[in-house]
């Protein structure tokens, strides 16, 4: 593990950096300790010296921008910031200023808060606003930071490869992608999902627009290239992977396949769906696996099974329980509750939630939660 502070007059770093903005010394130490096991040989944590007063005068955003140009930050691939940066020598610095400065430098930003986010706040959050929301729990947060940092590095590599392929293709007069969905689907090597990706665009029009405009330009500069990677990454990590529809996590997959979540944890069952795993892709995390929903469908179709439970039966696996709805355990689920992260049935849920992207077919809320909160949070 490497933890750097200031890093003045040191040689250019060789590892990818995670730059932390945190105003409390104790929190820095805690986070560094938690992140340590995940850093490996390719990542390092760099802490921005908020205890040193800024050198110049003027808006914090400009001063941060100048600071981020320094060589010791040249390896940074992800900025992580606390949402409350009110103390120390940079008194009054806000995470918004950090985000704007990072955005100008073409760096993705992930934010965390000390307090647990309430359901209504979580639901009201606009995904894809340029800030990736990190878990409140320290351990999960540290793991997620490492996944994100590596994800952006991998995404950059994939984008470069894709662009070089495109250039070859253009020479052979094949057309390149014309929508953001086509671009991302192509980069992730799942071209069939292009239109499904596009149906997630509404949650993050800004980023999508950016991607559209930039990807049309074949001769992009390094800075623009960075912005393209950030926009694509935020879209994937903070929108597509958060709302089940295109990709599904363990609970959503179990609910969709109608396999009890406990049974779906069993290796001999899970292995049946291995071909649909979201793997070797940016932000893919072995500790929190995800599956491509369309590939799960393909597996069921090939086996002539209506549900994952049927497929288990056809494969000779008996006594697989159905996935019960968290509101009424006598009926099967099929959907996923965004408020409780539990399986949910169509009967006990509401799909008329206008802040979910249309592509998030499995994202639901319980009827009761929806009718209570909808008028307050504008659904």
């Amino acid at each position, binding site marked *: 593990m490497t933890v750097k502070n200031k890093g003045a007059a040191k040689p250019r770093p060789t590892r990818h950096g995670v730059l932390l903005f945190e105003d409390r010394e104790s929190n820095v130490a805690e986070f560094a300790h938690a992140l340590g096991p995940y850093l490996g040989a390719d990542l390092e944590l760099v802490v921005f010296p908020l205890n040193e007063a800024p050198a110049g005068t003027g808006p914090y955003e400009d001063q941060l921008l100048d600071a981020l140009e320094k060589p010791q930050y040249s390896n940074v691939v992800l900025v992580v910031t606390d949402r409350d940066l009110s103390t120390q020598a940079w008194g009054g610095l806000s995470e918004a200023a950090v985000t704007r400065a990072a955005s100008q430098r073409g760096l993705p930003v992930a934010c965390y808060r000390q*307090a647990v986010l309430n359901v*209504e706040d979580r639901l009201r959050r606009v995904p894809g606003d340029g800030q990736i929301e990190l878990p409140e729990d320290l351990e999960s947060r540290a793991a997620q930071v490492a996944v994100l940092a590596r994800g952006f590095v991998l995404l950059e590599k994939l984008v470069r490869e894709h662009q070089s392929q495109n250039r070859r293709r253009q020479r052979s007069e094949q057309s390149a992608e014309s929508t953001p969905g086509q671009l991302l689907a192509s980069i992730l090597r799942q071209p069939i999902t292009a239109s499904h990706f596009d149906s997630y665009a509404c949650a993050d029009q800004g980023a999508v627009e950016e991607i559209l405009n930039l990807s049309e330009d074949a001769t992009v500069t390094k800075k623009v290239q960075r912005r393209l990677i950030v926009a694509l990454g935020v879209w994937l990590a903070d929108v597509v992977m958060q709302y089940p529809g295109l990709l599904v996590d363990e609970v959503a997959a179990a609910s969709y396949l109608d396999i009890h979540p406990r049974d779906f944890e069993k290796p001999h069952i899970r292995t049946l769906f291995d071909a649909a795993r979201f793997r070797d892709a940016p932000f893919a995390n072995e500790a929190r696996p995800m599956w491509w929903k369309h590939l799960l469908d393909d597996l069921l179709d090939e086996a002539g099974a209506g549900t994952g439970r049927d497929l288990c039966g056809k494969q000779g696996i008996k006594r697989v329980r159905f996935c019960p709805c968290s509101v009424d355990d006598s009926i099967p689920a099929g959907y996923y509750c965004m408020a409780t992260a539990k399986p949910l049935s169509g009967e006990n849920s509401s799909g008329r939630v206008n802040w979910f992207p249309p592509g998030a077919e499995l994202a639901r809320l319980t009827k009761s939660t929806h*009718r*209570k*909160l909808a008028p307050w949070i504008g659904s």
Partner: protein
Amino acid sequence: VAFDVEVRLLQELGERLVASPDVALLELVKNASDADAVRCDLAKASKFGRTTLQISDDGAGMSEADFRERWMRIAASSKTQRFTPHYKRPVTGQKGIGRFAIRFLGGAVKLESVAVDPKTGEKRKLEAFFDWRRLDKKLHLRDAKVPYRVSAVPADWHTGTRLTIYRLKSDLEESVDKSLLTRVLEIVSPIRALRAGRFSRLQSNAEHSQRGIDPGFEVTFSGFSSLPEETTDLAESVVKNAWARLTISLEGGRLAYDVRFQGENVSHKIRRHFSNTITSGLYADIVYAPKRKDSFKGVGVDRREVWSWIRRNSGIGVVDNGFRIRPYGFTDDDWLYLNQDAAHNRRDWRSSIAEKEFPISPVEQARPGLNPALNVPTTYQVIGIVNVSSRVGDDANSRDLTPAMDREGFLINQAYLEMVDVVRGGVEFLARVDKTRQLEIAEAQALALRHELRDDLAVTVDAIKEDPRLAKQEKAALVEHYSHLAQRVVEQEEYDRSARQRLEIASSLGVVAGFMTHEAERIFLGLDRVLVQIGAVDNPKLQAAVSEIKAAREQLDAYIRYTRLFIDSLRSDRTDSFSALGQIEWIRDQFGHLGASRGVETVIDCDEDVLVPAMPVALYSAVLLNLYTNALKAVIARTSGSRKNQVLIRAWNDSKSHHLSVQDTGVGVSAAIRERIWDPFFTTTSRVNSPLGTGMGLGLTLVRDLISRIGGRVDLDEPEAGFSTCFHASMPRRSS
């Protein structure tokens, strides 16, 4: 190369410059006024079976030189003289093109004018004939010759000009009627009972004129079958006896507002400096005639006639150089935004002067009953005239009041906007003092009633003391009873006064709520850390305390969440319909534990599909929260009895209304306080006698206020069997 002009220009000027026959006719009437005429006669005659129109005046007439150099020259600079030669009237014609409006009326015109020849001092008559059809045949304007002749006339002939219009436009033959003449009169003779201040002809001209006082200018009609009725007496009655009268004077930078109410000698005044570009300033006389009880009572005229006259003449007009200007103050015009703001219940002042001189306080802003902006009159409640004197100079950059070419209004320039600001400011001043006065009157009436009550009580006590038929003990009991009543009245007065003050102070607490929610999050954060550390200590007593703290923290967090959502929702303008059950469940989830932990059951009776009509969700939630927590407190306060401990919340819709009722099995509301429970700061709980603590006693006041604001009502209703209290709110399903 010089510009060349085709004859077509005359057609353009004549037929497209003005939009209506009355405006065209008025241009000719104004010319008569500019010729120092005292009388202008409009006559309808018939020649060869065709209708003709004659406009004759007794003015100075036109000499040959005048005709050649002024009448026949388009946009003559001689027209830019400021005042007429004899009576020193402000000149109304300003661009020297108004006379071409004749063409709008008919195909040919004969001009006859008798004037004194300035060279010889003898009288001469000039006759010219304009046949537009013939003139139009020429291409260039310079080739369009108008034949004329000049002849000597006897010295006893009166000077003056007569225009006879032939070949009236076909649609005009029919329309030269009462309505046209009424429109002309409205312009020429603004309501005479209204004062024109220094713009009055008689006053202003007397100061300048060499020939003495201007006898005035009137328009008469002859040959018309029906003439507009003379309503001078009624106009004077209305103006003299209206509710209030506002005068506005702007002279140089000095602005003065005066408002005087009917029957009062003292006027309300504002004097201030107002930088402006209106060279001649303005003077406005505006009467305010709202339909209120006792308005125009005892005036000696039929009140129905009064209201009918007001309806016909309402609006604030603008008189420029003695003539009213369209469209200001006429039907459908709202140049001061009076109707628009009334329709939208505007709660702010519009004029810069009002903002500075008598701003609306936050308390007034929040309470419609106190907000003076909601008291700004509509066009139909005011009759008034704003007198100005515009002048078109040669300065192209002039920012002064400038009439538009089509004679319909002024150019919207700085001076015009200042005029709107000044006049609107005056109307807003009127609204402000009227509102203050209304509130004072209401308060004085209430006070008088209470004094009357106290006096009555004192008289009653004396009468009882003197009554020989009553036994001594009876007297003592009755005297004590009435003395107690008198004491209650005094207490009530004191209570009213202090309650009002406390209400205003209490409203400022809203700011603190915002800070509290933010700080609470920080406390929770610290608390959670400490709880984790204490939780690690193996001590059963500590663990029990931790569990208790955790439960209280969770509950407090729920309140904070509710408060945050509540505050956030106030920023939203959304007023959609929403599920009643959802909100009832939400409130029960957040606050129901207060009762549940003390054995109070909350029962909900509401179908899933009952929708609350469109309103801010915070409003509905606030009503529900107050009624529900009151009910919980009432049940908990009951010390004995065999009844179950229950609160029943019911919501349903019928064809007209949404209904919400909250019933409880608590202590009930005694008859003695049934009316007082709605008063601000009235509370039956205190920190000592209520285990849930006490509120500020504002709950039911707010509930009633909020419900009435959406056109609904809330009452103490008859409870169902087994319950002791029932509050029932009904809200209209369609906005009224």
